[in-house]
């Protein structure tokens, strides 16, 4: 398959590489770039394990063509900790909001976009924001608590 040059920002650093035209962003990030934090769960856009942030919006990387990120800013869970863990990550650890951990990177991406846009979300807002992220360990309650706690901490800070 033909390859196209792709230049984009991944977690704040500039990347210039090539991508096959039919390749999805999930495989591109994982096997092409080596960022293994987005996970394959379904390949059909139903589970949210592959959620990444593109220009401030959540996207399902399994349904996004790699070549479409040309010139855009991509964020993944592996870039969330900047020197020290992000408050969301700290809250997830504190509230036992990860069991097997497989949905966690996607969950964190959805949570980050929510808090970036809405610093004081209601419980309903949180549920809405993570409604596209499945957790089969069914740890939703601790996840919701962790996201709300992060928002509260930020308001107090």
């Amino acid at each position, binding site marked *: 398959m033909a390859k196209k040059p792709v230049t984009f920002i991944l977690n704040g650093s500039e990347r210039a590489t090539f991508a096959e035209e039919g390749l999805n962003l999930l495989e591109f990030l994982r096997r092409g770039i080596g960022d293994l934090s987005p*996970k394959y*769960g379904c390949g*059909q856009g139903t589970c949210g394990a592959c959620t990444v942030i593109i220009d401030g919006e959540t996207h399902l990387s399994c349904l996004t063509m790699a070549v479409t990120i040309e010139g855009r800013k991509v964020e993944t*869970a592996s870039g969330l900790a900047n020197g020290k863990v992000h408050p969301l990550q700290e809250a997830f650890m504190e509230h036992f909001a990860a069991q097997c951990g*497989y949905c966690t990177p996607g969950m964190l991406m959805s949570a980050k976009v929510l808090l970036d846009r809405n610093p004081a979300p209601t419980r309903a807002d949180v549920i809405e924001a993570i409604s596209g992220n499945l*957790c*089969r360990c069914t740890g939703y309650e601790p996840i919701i608590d962790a996201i709300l706690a992060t928002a509260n901490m930020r308001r107090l800070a």
Partner: protein
Amino acid sequence: MIEFRKEFFANERDDNLNEIGKPTRRQDILGHVTGRSPYFDDHLFEGLLHIRCVRSPHHHARIRRIDVSAAEKMPGVVRVLLGKDVPLNLNTLLSLLDFGLDDEPVLSTTKVAYKGEPVAAIIAESEAQARAAVLAVKVDWEVLPHVLDVEDAVKPGAPVVCDVYPSNKFIYHGKFDHQKLRYGDVEDAFARADHIVEGRYQMSPIEQAPMETCGAIAAPEVNDRFVCFTSTQGLFFSLGTAAKLLTMPSSRLHFVGGTVGGGFGGKVDSMHEPLAILGAMLTGRPCKYAWDREEEMQVGAPRGAERWYIKDGIARDGRILARKFTGYFDSGAYTRLSSYAIIKGVGHLPGPYTIPNVYADVFCVYTNRTPATAMRGFGITGVDFAIEAHMDKGAEMAGLNPIDFRILNSYRDGDMKAHRRLAKNCALVECCQVVAEKGGVVLTQASRAATSLLDGGGERARLPSRTATDQNGIVSGFKGGNYAKKGGGASAPQPVALPIAASAPTPAYPSPASVRPAAPTYQPAATPPPAPQPPAPAADTARHGALRFSSLSGFRRR
């Protein structure tokens, strides 16, 4: 809100419940929240090949011919695997524990018994190329009649699902086509009972549906070894299975696991590791074999369906005098772990209640459905649902509040259980009392005064004066020895020679001779004395999981 009542466990080790009730951080959680936990697929290999299977579109069909000539010429295809390429193409998972006959091929060569059963595997440079080549494999099927219901499957004339068990029933202990429990005489007690309560209960299969699908990546390693990164829940179980199917010593296999993206029981079947390693052996390159979501849902083994018939005989005062079970576990097309689920389930009967007469016939039935396997409490969950639904029914018949009815019949410490061990640390009476209090249910004076610490034992600790036994479902042609076919017995397919250095087989599991038979822990007077015990081995290799399992199954002492 957790409330500890340690007085009910006074004779247990006092560890002061150091961890329970206090928050503890998972030791692996930093990796989880930073996206760095290494799941099996998070290992990058140069030149990784992808394996995809050709699967049966039919529930039950004979394979007349598999034509892979077109697929072999497809772009990117490196190798096509068939059953003949698998060194030992027949296995049953619990052969590692000495339990059951080898019944399931890795890649079937003669017939398929469930929709989605693999018959060939494509190894290609990319997943897309492997998928394309799968479509190019032509299989000439002779569709056979199928059976999808457990009770239809055990009727005379039903299609034979699995040739190893022609009656569509697993054979227990080389002797019976079901697992028996006999304690007292239920028929006699039914004749004396004031109420008879009957019920039929069933449960559908349930898919574990982990977020991470099952899979493995294998690659040649140095020193003639192979490394295998796997999503397995049972690393040594998968290691032993791979060593058996590939007829190679486990010392040549380097398994890496432990980071599992959800399993819930569905990741013990070891379907991926042997094929991924075989691919690496035959191509000399790293190979990934993983299910996509559709495969996870269709061919991933679920919690099996169950159907239960329960009959209770109840006295006028609400005491259950007798309980009779007939159970059918839907094992699907092969045994996997269903045979064991039943051993576990029957050990659990008749539920946590002191009932002087108990009878159970529980069948592990083969149907043309997806093979069933482990899932969170399998063997117990389905029958517990049936028992507790039936308890509510019994309470209604006896005219009692369901909680009073349970307290009346609950185990007390020191009571004899149907599997002939004394109950201890029961506390069910007290749990029921707390439930009633929280739920605002007013109990009788007797229920409020009941205690599991004092009310048991004595007369209630006695075994029944007589236990009615029978030879129903006895089979011939199955020998105890058939169940100890470690690494393939004489009748197993001959291993295929592989282009690898032959080493003396030193399987991960001990040879049959080195497994010490379990000592009988209890022998009811009504059963014949145990068969002479084989001599104990000199080596102390007997401290093995098989020991306890054999003791549980009772096979070794029959």
